[in-house]
């Protein structure tokens, strides 16, 4: 069975869940080979998890280079010859590694897919309004997979280890001079949360976002925000939901004081259940809401929070 390269997504020695999604998807195409590019010993720490999730081979490419993304591209380029394809997570970094690899190797680039089969891939586009199927016309296509789109299936692979060289970067590269990780906080991550409570411009101020957070915490939910709320400085940018923010599809999405502009809906309309609170009964968010309350979020949200807390006992 041909090998399928999976670029391992890891940060500060911790595996990202999307890697296991990629390994699951890779099994549809062939035999998964995990490619770990990182500092000395990075692969050692991740090997068990990778093997448990289906990696037949684990390539360890150790480097202390400060070249931005160049080691990842160079290692994948050196390995791609024998591979049926390459799977990379559709993060900002992943999309760039994929693009650069595709132009270097003349491979078809299939971007932000939500499903992978032997015949091709599935896309969900225009904020979930369209589905499309696509295929590559070249050898070893480079595919980026949307985080959260694939359900992880753990079935162990052989996990054979192999060290590989990191070829020198070709061309001039940008240098990484510093990193500041995101301060995650105690709430679940937006793209992984089963429940999300989002606030919009209707929340009115940064202070009043505590109303959104309070309800979120009672539900064990992540907090999201509309672009207007972010632009007004009510909530930090990494929590923006929508076309240019995060695409989410939780079990439950509660929108507070969000009008439901098409660009916001593009990031959340595939949520399983949508609840909206808005004082304007004409707000477009109600067009996609399974249950809507026309009312003041400052009255409705705290009452809902009380009810939730009561029920939890």
């Amino acid at each position: 069975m041909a090998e399928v390269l999976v670029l391992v997504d890891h940060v500060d020695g911790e595996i990202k869940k999307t890697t296991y999604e990629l390994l699951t998807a890779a099994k549809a195409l062939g035999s998964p080979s995990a490619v770990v590019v990182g500092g000395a010993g990075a692969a050692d720490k991740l090997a068990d998890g990778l093997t448990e999730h289906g990696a037949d081979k684990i390539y360890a490419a150790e480097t202390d280079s400060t070249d931005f993304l160049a080691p990842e591209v160079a290692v994948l380029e050196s390995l791609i010859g024998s591979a049926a394809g390459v799977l990379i997570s559709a993060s900002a970094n992943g999309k760039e590694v994929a693009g650069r690899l595709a132009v270097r190797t003349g491979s078809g680039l299939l971007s932000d897919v939500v499903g992978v089969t032997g015949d091709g891939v599935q896309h969900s586009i225009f904020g979930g309004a369209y589905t499309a199927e696509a295929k590559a016309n070249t050898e070893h296509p480079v595919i980026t997979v949307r985080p959260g789109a694939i359900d992880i299936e753990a079935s162990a692979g052989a996990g054979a280890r192999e060290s590989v060289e990191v070829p020198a970067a070709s061309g001039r590269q940008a240098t990484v001079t510093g990193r500041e990780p995101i301060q995650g906080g105690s709430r679940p991550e937006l793209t992984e949360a089963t429940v999300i409570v989002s606030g919009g411009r209707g929340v009115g101020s940064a202070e009043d976002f505590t109303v959104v957070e309070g309800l979120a915490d009672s539900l064990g939910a992540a907090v999201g925000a509309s672009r207007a709320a972010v632009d007004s400085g009510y909530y930090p940018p990494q929590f923006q939901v929508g076309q240019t923010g995060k695409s989410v599809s939780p079990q439950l999405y509660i929108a507070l004081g969000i009008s439901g502009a098409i660009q916001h809906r593009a990031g959340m309309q595939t949520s399983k259940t949508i609840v909206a609170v808005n004082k304007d009964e004409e707000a477009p968010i109600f067009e996609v809401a399974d249950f809507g309350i026309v009312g003041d979020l400052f009255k409705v949200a705290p009452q809902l929070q009380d009810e939730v807390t009561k029920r939890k006992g």
Partner: protein
Amino acid sequence: MKIVTLVKQVADTYSERKLSDSDHTLDREGTEAVIDEINERAVEQALLLKEAAGDGEVVVVCMGPDRASDAIRKALSMGADSAVHLSDEAIHGSCAVQTARALTKLIGTVEGWDLVIAGNSASDGQVAAVPAMVADLLGVPALTWANELSVSGSTVTVKRETDDGVTHLSAELPAVVSVGEKSNEPRYPSFKGIMAAKKKPVNNLDLAGAGIDGSEVGLANALVSVTSSAPKPPKQAGEKVTDEGDGGAKIAEYLVGQKLI
């Protein structure tokens, strides 16, 4: 400083976007076409750098159908100095790799540039890779997703902001930068700017003019193909009730009914 900005015309995200039934490419007839909002920020960034440097030139580079000249005009009316526009029937349906290769050729027609500034991600395809691909083909550094950008001497530094946090990047010019949504607020074209834009030079090229062979672009030669597409049925609106003082309790009841709490 000479700056190239990559500008793309896209279907307005405020309109309903469709794919054509025949070849699964964007149905341009059915939608309003506008300059992609993120490219207004790319143009703004270029103008800010030019203004800070006290001199320089901003050249718009665009690949797209004839009507994309509206997007170019918008960039020129904001203050860009000139443009290069590749428009040819044969580019229809080009994939990301073909687009990056063609843009690289177009950038090659601009002499002596120091910096290319693009948007981080186009609102239609959201490939979010073309700037890095172009940089790779040009053999220059890519500093992408910049929410802050500065040039001092021949060094460009960027504060890159993504889901993975903040990364500080630096490189020597020439280089490619892509800007994020929080990088700046684009200016509105002034009346004077709109009038001046009408006289600014636009180099209109077809494939031959850009030195691109027909086999390098287009749907038939694309490295990937869309094989089918279908609209998803829109979500149906559910129940809507006016709060009578028990709105929160009503939601709780609904969520219990749905086994969500």
